C-alpha cells in the first residue's frame, strides 16, 4: 500500500488509467480507513486518473473500450468514497446538465463518454438515456432547473430532432435559460449554428471544455 497521501492519490489515479477496478476500490477503502478527506481523494485520485484517460483518448492511445473500462474503475472508487463526502462538499451547488440521445437513435456510447467526462469534471449530470422525445428534454430541463442541455446523435436521420428541441424551448419562451450543446457523428459546428445551438464539441473531453466556456465555471 502507498505510504503518503500523495502516493495514495497517485496510485488511485493510476488505477483508473490502468482500468483496474479492484485496485481503485481497495485504494479508496484504504483512503477511508486512513480518514483521508474523500473529496480530495476523488479530485486528486479518481478524477485526475479519468482526466489522464481522456487525454490518452484525445491523443488516440486509448479508444472507446479503454475509456469505458477507465470509467468503470473510477465509478468503483467513487462508490466507496462518495458516502464519506462531507456534507458541504456533497451539497455544493453544481452546474447541472441534462443529457440524452435524441429520438430515433439508440447509439449511446458517445453520450455515455460525455456523461462520464462531465461527471468526472464535477458537473451534475442527469442522464435521460437514448431515444428521447424532444418534449422530455424540455420538461426535465425545466423541472430540474438545469443549466445545460446536451444532445447527441450518431445518425443523419435524427439530426432534425435536435432542432426541434430548440424550437420547443423557444416556443415555451425559455430558450435563454439554458445553454444547448450538440455532438455526434454527423453533427458539425455549421449545423450547430444553423439550429441555434450554443455550441458543438467533437469529443467527450472537448465537451467538458465547451461546457466550462459556456457556463464560465471552474468545476
Amino acid at each position, binding site marked *: 500500500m502507498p505510504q503518503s497521501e500523495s502516493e495514495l492519490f497517485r496510485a488511485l489515479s493510476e488505477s483508473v488509467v490502468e482500468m483496474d477496478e479492484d485496485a481503485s476500490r481497495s485504494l479508496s477503502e484504504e483512503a477511508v480507513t486512513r480518514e483521508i478527506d474523500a473529496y480530495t481523494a476523488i479530485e486528486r485520485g479518481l478524477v485526475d486518473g479519468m482526466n489522464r484517460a481522456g487525454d490518452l483518448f484525445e491523443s488516440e492511445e486509448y479508444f472507446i473500450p479503454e475509456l469505458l473500462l477507465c470509467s468503470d474503475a473510477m465509478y468503483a472508487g467513487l462508490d466507496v468514497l462518495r458516502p464519506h463526502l462531507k456534507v458541504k462538499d456533497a451539497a455544493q451547488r453544481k452546474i447541472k446538465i441534462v443529457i440524452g440521445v435524441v429520438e430515433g437513435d439508440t447509439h449511446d456510447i458517445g453520450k455515455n463518454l460525455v456523461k462520464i467526462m462531465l461527471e468526472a469534471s464535477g458537473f451534475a449530470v442527469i442522464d435521460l438515456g437514448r431515444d428521447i422525445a424532444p418534449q422530455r428534454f424540455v420538461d426535465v430541463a425545466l423541472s430540474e432547473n438545469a443549466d445545460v442541455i446536451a444532445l447527441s446523435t450518431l445518425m443523419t*436521420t435524427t439530426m432534425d430532432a435536435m432542432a426541434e428541441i430548440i424550437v420547443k424551448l423557444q416556443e415555451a419562451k425559455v430558450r435563454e435559460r439554458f445553454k444547448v450543446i450538440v455532438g455526434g457523428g454527423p453533427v458539425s459546428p455549421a449545423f450547430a449554428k444553423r439550429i441555434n445551438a450554443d455550441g458543438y464539441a467533437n469529443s467527450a473531453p472537448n465537451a467538458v471544455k465547451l461546457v466550462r466556456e459556456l457556463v464560465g465555471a471552474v468545476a
Partner: protein
Amino acid sequence: MARDAMTPKQRFAAYARGEALDRLPCVPIVGNTAARVLGVKVSEFRGNGKLLAAAQVAAYRRFGYDVMRIFTDLYTQAEAMGARVHYPDDETAYLAEPAIDSVEKIDSLQPADPRKAGNLPHHLEAMARAVDAVGDEVAVNGALTGPFTTASFLIGADRLARLMLRNPEAVHRLCEVALQSALAYAEAILEVGCAPSLTDAMCSSTVISARQFQEFGQPYLRRLVEFLHARDRAVTLHICGKTRPIWSAMCDTGADCLSIDNAADLAEAKASIGGRVRLMGNIPPAEVMLLGTPEQVRADVRRCVRQAHDNPKGLIVATGCSLPVETPFANIDAMLDAVREIGWPVNAAELVGAAELENPCRA
C-alpha cells in the same frame, strides 16, 4: 443534362481494361432515399422485397448511378439472429435491443438461415427482382454487415467494448457465429446473381484501436473476402469514420475497393494505398448532400476528383457513407451532373482552384 453514353457495366468493364470512358463511375450511396423516389414510407420495405426492389430500381433509373445496392439498415443480420429492431413509420430502422445480454448466452446464438430468418428472405427477393429488372446494365449489390459490427448488435456495443479487453475469447466466439451467419447470407446473395458489399461500421478507428481491428475485425473480414474471391467476386469494403490507421490492414483483407468516409482524407488514402485498391468516396452525406446546395455538391465532386482521379487502381466518385433519407434529389442529380461535366479523360488542370469546401467532419 444528357444521359450517359455507356451503361454502368460497360463503364466498369472499360475502366478495368484501361480504355476510354464517357465519365468516371459515380455512386451516391442511396439507401432508404429510394422510398422517396417511389413515394412510399420507409417502413413499408419491411417484409416486402417486391417494393424494396421497385424503389431501388426506380432510384437507379431516376439518377443513373453506377452501383445499385439493396440496403435498408445495418441490422438485418443481427435481427435474423435475435436482436430486436425498431421500425419507425417513415425513418431508418434502429436497434432496440441486442439479441443477448450476457456472455453466458453467446453459445445460444445460431447463424441465421437466410431463407427463413428475419428480413433476409425479403432482401434476397429484392436482389433477385432488381437483377431481373436492370441486372444486364448495372451491378446489383446486396448489403452485408461485417461480423464485428453484427457482434456489437448481438450483445450491445458497450458490453462488446468491455469484453474486448476483459474477455477477448468471448468476442471471438461472437464474431465467429456472426461470420458463419454472414457466409451463409453471402452464399445466398451470390445465388440470386448479386455480389455482397461489406460494411463494418464498428471497426472504425473512431471507435476501436488499429490493434483491436487487427485482432477482432480484420480476420473475419478476410475470411469473408476469401470466400467471395473463391467465387470470382470483387469486394468493396466500407468502414465508417476515421480509418487511416487501418488502411493497410483493410487492404490485407483482400478487398478490391475501399469506400472511404468523409472523416478520412481521400488524397492521403491515394498516397498510402492507392496502388493496392480502388478507392470510393468521399463527399459528406450530411453536410454537403443533405444540407448543401447543388453548387456545393458540384464543388465537392471536383475536390474528390482532383484528389484521387489518378489513383492507380481507380476512383469511384461516391458519398462518404449512405445518404440520409431526405437528401434532396437536386443534390443527387448535381453529383452525377458534376461527374458528367468533368467527363473523360479528366483534365486535372481544369479542376485546380475549384472552390473547396471545408470538410466539416474533420474539424
